[in-house]
């Protein structure tokens, strides 16, 4: 008898868990289903409430996905903050064609599986447009789902090629290959060096992705890669071996397609060795001047290809940086800028297509994927940004050089 009780308890638990979050169908036309749903599962109140709010119209539901816990939390947090900032600005200025935006950001812990869960959560919330995900691998997993559901998908910073492989997906940042190729072309065309060394993170998708395309393009530009040394996330504190190899090979320029934390260590160690090549990096180096206890004089002369520098002096950047600092207390990085532009791109696309909040996510997607290729916006990460049907942004890569402890455009 008691055993029967235990079984009953266990199955009740499973059933409760299932019905607790069951209920709300994924499409927008949930209104007629709502009555039955409430009688079925009183626990589904939260989800049902979502259905009611969107039915009355007047708000676009924009979802965001990114890591706000775990190792990559700093990127997700930046995107979350900046996107919220942009949404608040738009709402304060009267919204999109009079409709307000509601923004809901879900954590994916920088994990593909959790990102899909986050996406499904947002779908239950009746999301209409997705801004996300922040990092590449989760984005590749999520784009599969958005493609199935025909959901408009704009990633601020998912840079892998596969992250936007379908026609419903666009991105704000440059793709990895794009950055690698652009870097090689920039170095080649400006005659910065002939002999190039590369130090990259082989355990990181971003870094190895850029390296591979850089290496492929380098030959076309007459560059000679004299040493290509890798490190991994487990060995990112000592780079003397890699630097010594680059030095012995006589490299005039060291290409660093990595994030700024490691780069700051590399610069310090190169200085100790008395090795003074030109250092050249991608957008991952953005933020190097803000590293704690980092002697910014070491970064003197470092060049980086980045679409955004927080101390650029144009009005748009200045206003954004100030608003961001007031709201969140720190200097926005490139991820924040991408997200900010992403929200404005969504706004522009919605205005162009003339979609209204009462349309279903799929109809919005059909309209937006056409209008997205027709808009041109002046954002933080580039002036006159346009998008191709493949989802890649067209904007000029900007190279900046660090002089006197500040980024200056070249």
């Amino acid at each position, binding site marked *: 008898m008691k055993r029967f009780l*235990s079984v009953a308890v266990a*199955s009740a638990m499973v059933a409760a868990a299932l019905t*607790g979050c069951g209920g709300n169908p994924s499409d927008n036309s949930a209104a007629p289903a709502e009555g039955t749903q409430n009688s079925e599962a009183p626990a589904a109140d939260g989800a049902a409430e979502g259905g009611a709010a969107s039915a009355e119209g007047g708000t676009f539901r924009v979802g965001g996905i990114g890591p706000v816990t*775990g*190792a990559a939390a700093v990127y997700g947090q930046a995107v979350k903050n900046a996107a919220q900032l942009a949404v608040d600005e738009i709402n304060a200025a009267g919204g999109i064609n009079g409709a307000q935006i509601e923004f809901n950001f879900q954590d994916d812990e920088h994990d593909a599986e959790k990102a899909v*869960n986050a996406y499904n959560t947002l779908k239950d919330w009746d999301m209409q447009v997705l801004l996300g995900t922040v990092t590449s691998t989760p984005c590749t997993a999520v784009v*599969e789902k958005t493609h199935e559901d025909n959901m408009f998908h704009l990633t601020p910073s998912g840079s892998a090629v596969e992250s936007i492989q379908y026609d419903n997906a666009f991105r704000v940042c440059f793709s990895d290959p794009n950055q690698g190729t652009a870097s090689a072309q920039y170095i080649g065309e400006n005659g910065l060096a002939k002999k190039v060394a590369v130090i990259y993170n082989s355990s990181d998708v971003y870094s*190895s992705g850029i390296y591979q395309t850089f290496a492929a393009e380098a030959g076309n530009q007459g560059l000679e890669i004299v040493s290509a040394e890798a490190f991994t996330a487990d060995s990112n504190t000592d780079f003397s071996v890699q630097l010594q190899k680059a030095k012995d090979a006589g490299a005039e320029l060291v290409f660093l397609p990595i994030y700024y934390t490691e780069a700051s260590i590399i610069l310090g160690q190169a200085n100790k060795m008395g090795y003074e090549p030109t250092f050249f990096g991608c957008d991952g180096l953005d933020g190097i001047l803000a590293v704690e206890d980092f002697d910014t004089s070491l970064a003197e002369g470092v060049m980086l290809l980045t679409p955004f520098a927080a101390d650029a002096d144009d009005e748009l950047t200045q206003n954004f940086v100030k608003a961001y600092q007031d709201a969140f207390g720190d200097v926005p990085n490139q991820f924040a800028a991408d997200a900010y532009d992403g929200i404005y791109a969504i706004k522009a696309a919605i205005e162009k297509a003339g979609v209204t909040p009462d349309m279903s996510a799929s109809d919005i997607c059909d309209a937006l994927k056409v209008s997205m290729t027709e808009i041109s916006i002046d954002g933080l990460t580039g002036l006159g940004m346009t998008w191709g049907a493949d989802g890649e942004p067209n904007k000029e890569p900007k190279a900046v050089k660090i002089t006197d402890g500040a980024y200056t455009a070249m």
Partner: protein
Amino acid sequence: MFMKKINKTTRYNMITYAIVVIAYAIVMLLGAAGHISSLMEGLLVPLCIYVILAVSLNLVVGILGELSLGHAGFMCVGAFAGSFFSMCTKEAVPGGLRFLLALIIGAAAAALFGILIGIPVLRLKGDYLAIVTLAFGEIIKNLMNVLYIGRDEAGFHFSMKDTLALGLSPEGKAIINGPQGITGTPHDSNFTIGVLLILLTLFIILNLIHSRDGRAIMAIRDNRIAAESIGINVTTYKLMAFTLSASIAGIAGVLYAHNLSTLTALPKNFGYNMSIMILVFVVLGGIGNIRGSVISAVVLTLLPELLRGLSDYRMLIYAVVLIVMMLFNWSPKAVELRERYSLKRLFHLTTKE
């Protein structure tokens, strides 16, 4: 007396199967009626994966009495082996058959690594298995990050450096692309297959436990010297349990790989933390209690997702819940309290000698 005891275990096992089948039926009914949220729908396959992992780890931790901290490593091996196979035969073999073969290959690959690790380590006494499996999990993860395998008309190309070193012809395609892993694995996993695999796992493990071999394995756990003295080959039985556990983890890995379109060996999915998480499922469900593992894996996988409404406090509350559950399950006072209110039948396998 003897007959009654057999019936007891059979009945106990039947209840375990029944829980899984009933849960499956409920989900299917709710699904057919359209009452399953997208979140829940997306969670169904991961739930199956974690249940399989927890049950298979329980074989090593609970039944064999050894500590394994590299279960995610075996899952990783299975995932990559199965996914690699599917990518190679995407066009050549039809879906169902291909997935079946992928499952077998994933299980075999993980079992192979289980044997390779087990042979030297399981001969030793003490905590060596924990140390070696911990290292194994980390090594496999890093190995996958430097592995490049591509294919063109000339055959397979292999490198540990980068894709350029593969020397592929223009038509060639890198299948395993270092840290970018495998992209585009066909989406073959579904809930029905997941539940069938859970039932298969339960069937294999529950039958093993109640067989002659299973009793030998438990004898080794309880007293190695006594077991040896009555002629049980300690290493063979340990190896058997360990390899079986590894291969089932490999199956879970294949299921994982075919559920997402992208497979990368990140610390998050195949690292140390994942191994520990599976161990947490086992410990909270009750060491040696197979049904407990099933339930705790389901509850603990659902919990962080159901707590999404609490946004920033989600992980904090998850941790607190873990601590509370641990205290409830294992602290002497809580055990005493539970026994007083005679719920001990629920946990009767753990207390049974």
